[in-house]
């Protein structure tokens, strides 16, 4: 079928206003703010319903057209930029908040609901409940972030966002609609089990297994007071111990640490977030943390109001980090690391940044009481400067290799990072993944080029 006929088909499915192959739309969807180079797109569509997505996938199967689903498009890893051309499906018109279950504490939403909108909705209508959101801009989608195994301000207490998924509605590569989790059995989207848990198949698979159209995500009770207690530490080797001591107390909502040579050279910031229902409770928790910082040879740091407000904003305005080069480009090597490997990762990643002329900048978060650390080394760059962009790509790649060498795993890796993981991956895992993918997507239409296991 020629391109104009395909466009007509797509227009018939989603409406004339929501299918395009205009050069302007293709240009915008062929690149993201990360350091990946642009790659061509053939069509962009904005469906409103799962049924429309079914029809698009059936057309794509008939015509062997690659399909790339997109939520907020904020991964910075080029995961929504097609590798082999094809159709980008921007899901943000699917933006209904379908249900808030106050008692069983979950939100049932369509895939295009943004983190900003769900947060604002809860704030207005359910002020005692909250959803964990990433430090990404509010245009990131809740579903997209959960499906890339994102994390947020409640991840220290409750785990990664992927762990908070109660249920999914997926359009499978052949166009079938499949419900996963308790919603497969019950009207309530309240839990993942106790049936064989297939949800994990769709997490971190970057759209290769299907397209999520609905998701139920856990909500959590919210205290009315929140505070951040900042400490500074000289040696990275102190960090695992202090994190263990904080997690032992069970008082932290969130633990974030940062290295920023722009702000303060030679120190590590530690920001522990606490919540409470009274000033007295906040005061008690603050005292405990100050004592822990002191015993760990760190110092409590009284911070200016602007600094405090920066940390307490939801989402944290982490995009400010993207602007350090005033050039609209930002990439980071995000990684899951065992806590004990953190000091080495911090020091070696600083060296890598310096090697590429990038001011060292790291922001990391403790996940699940110290079971994991999301370690991120950031590389802001100027999009107008190809050398700057190349430096960011090289620093990213080298840091990714470092993390794998240390026993960590690259989070939401770009294509080169995926290759590094696949090289290290156990052959039996690869075979299993390949077999499942082939069974679900025999025509290989779903985001081909990603997780390419040969």
């Amino acid at each position, binding site marked *: 079928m020629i391109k104009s006929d395909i466009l007509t088909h797509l227009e018939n499915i989603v409406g004339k*206003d*929501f299918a*395009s192959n*205009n*050069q*302007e*739309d293709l*240009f*915008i*969807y062929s*690149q*993201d*703010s990360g350091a990946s180079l642009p790659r061509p797109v053939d069509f*962009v569509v*904005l469906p409103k319903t799962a049924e429309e997505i079914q029809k698009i996938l059936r057309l794509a199967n008939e015509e062997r057209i690659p399909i790339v689903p997109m939520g*907020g*498009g*904020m991964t910075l890893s080029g995961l929504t930029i097609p590798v082999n051309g094809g159709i980008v499906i*921007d899901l*943000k*018109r699917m933006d209904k908040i379908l249900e808030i279950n106050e008692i069983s504490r979950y939100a049932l939403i369509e895939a295009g609901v*943004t983190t*900003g*909108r769900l*947060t*604002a*909705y809860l*704030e*207005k209508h359910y002020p005692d409940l909250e959803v964990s959101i990433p430090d990404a*801009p*509010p*245009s990131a989608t809740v579903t997209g972030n959960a499906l890339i195994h994102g994390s947020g301000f409640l991840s220290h207490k409750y785990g990664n966002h992927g762990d908070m998924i109660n249920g999914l509605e997926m359009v499978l590569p052949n166009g079938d609609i499949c419900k996963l989790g308790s919603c497969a059995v019950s009207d309530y989207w309240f839990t993942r089990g106790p049936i064989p848990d297939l949800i994990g198949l769709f997490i971190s698979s970057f759209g290769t297994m299907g397209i999520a159209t609905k998701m139920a995500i856990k909500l959590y009770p919210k205290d009315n007071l929140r505070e951040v207690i900042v400490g500074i530490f000289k040696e990275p080797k102190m960090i695992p111990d202090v994190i263990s001591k904080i997690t032992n107390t069970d008082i932290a909502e969130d633990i974030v640490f940062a290295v920023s040579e722009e702000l303060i050279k030679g120190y590590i910031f530690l920001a522990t977030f606490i919540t409470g229902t009274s000033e007295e409770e906040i005061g008690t928790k603050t005292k405990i943390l100050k004592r822990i910082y002191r015993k760990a040879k760190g110092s409590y740091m009284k911070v200016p109001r602007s600094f405090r407000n920066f940390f307490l904003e939801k989402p944290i*305005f982490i*995009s*400010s980090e*993207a*602007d350090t080069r*005033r*050039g*609209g*480009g*930002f990439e980071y090597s995000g990684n899951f690391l065992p806590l004990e490997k953190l000091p080495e990762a911090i020091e070696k990643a600083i060296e890598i940044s310096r090697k590429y002329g990038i001011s060292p900048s790291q922001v990391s978060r403790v996940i699940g009481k110290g079971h994991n650390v999301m370690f991120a080394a950031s590389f802001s760059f*100027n*999009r*107008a400067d190809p050398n700057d962009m190349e430096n960011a790509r090289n620093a990213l790649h080298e840091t990714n290799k470092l993390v794998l060498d240390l026993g960590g795993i690259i989070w939401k890796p770009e294509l080169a990072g995926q290759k590094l993981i696949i090289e290290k991956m156990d052959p039996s895992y690869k075979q299993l993944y390949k077999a499942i993918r082939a069974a679900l997507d025999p025509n290989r239409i779903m985001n081909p080029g990603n997780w390419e296991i040969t």
Partner: protein
Amino acid sequence: MTINVKQDWKDIVHRCFRCGYCKFTFEYSDFNCPSYKKHRFETYSTGGRMWLIYGIINGDLQWSQNLANVLYSCSTCGNCMENCRFDKFNDFLVDIIEAARAEAVKNGFCPEKQKALLERTTNTEMFNPYGEPNSDNEELKKKYNLPDKAEWVYFIGCTSNYRQKNLRDATLRFLKKINLDFTLIDEHCCTSPIIRTGQIEPVKEFMNYNIDKIKEVGATKVITSCAGCCRTLKVDFAKQGVNHDLEIYHTSELVKRFLDEGKIMFTSEFNKTVTYHDPCHIGRHMGLYEEPRDVYKQIPGIKFVEMGRNRENAWCCGAGGGVKIGYPDWAVEISKERLEEAKETGATILSSTCPFCRTNLSDANDKFNLGLEVIDLIEILDQLEIKVNE
């Protein structure tokens, strides 16, 4: 400031990270960019436009009618400027879009409907974007017994003079009622519509003409009842390098000042529930939020209520930036959303301080049969008894 993408913006356009803050309200409860909310392609967000403009600058994109259409599908409401978090960049977002429109014009890609604005405005029988024969305002001067020389000029503006005559006449009656020493001039278009659509070639000539006319009557102060004229006279003249020493007041500023100084006092009641729509041109573009509110709140009997989105967070009426002429159906859809928001407050009157907002909001009110009364602040004041303290 030179309006030229390549000269002025090349070094900053690419600073946009496309983070998407520009699309939202302050609290992220909804999209507040009319263009993105309508089209939903990333292309139609301010971030998308910044990337397209950079694509043109670095040669990755070529001009096309569709590209121009994307640039013109923006009401230049300035929501993006309020929500973009990058200082020393966010202030320029609308300027950059207007500069890119000027490039579109230069490259022959100004959309036809917007072109008509320029053709009518530069027609020597008209000098206004509505295609009406030019009014030298002599009849109005006679009718209202206005002098040839005065301290103030009421710069009526084309929308009030040719489309919203009720608003014009209410303003004239009000200014007479408060004994302001003012007159009218044979004004030409303030140039707002042609600046907003990138058609800047004749702008300075128009600006200089209007300044000369104002000075000819000996005035040192200008009052406008139009948010667009106000912004143009206060902001765009300087940006174009046309400097003047005139004091420019929006009617709401003048009334507020006179109330504060005790020169006037409202002595009758207006017993209705009113909500206020912030015009983008005096709101986000100039920061005049409290002046009109202070005036409404001093009207005896009025119940003044706020819409959910107000001040910097207001939803645009959809008329500005050439959208009303370029995309008339969409323009009233945008207003429909505002009217529905107004109805939620329980107000029976949606009031504004801009004839162009009034036009579009009224059009939507009529088209969708929404049952609100849409009137300007000055039309409310015109209904009041006013005590003037000399």
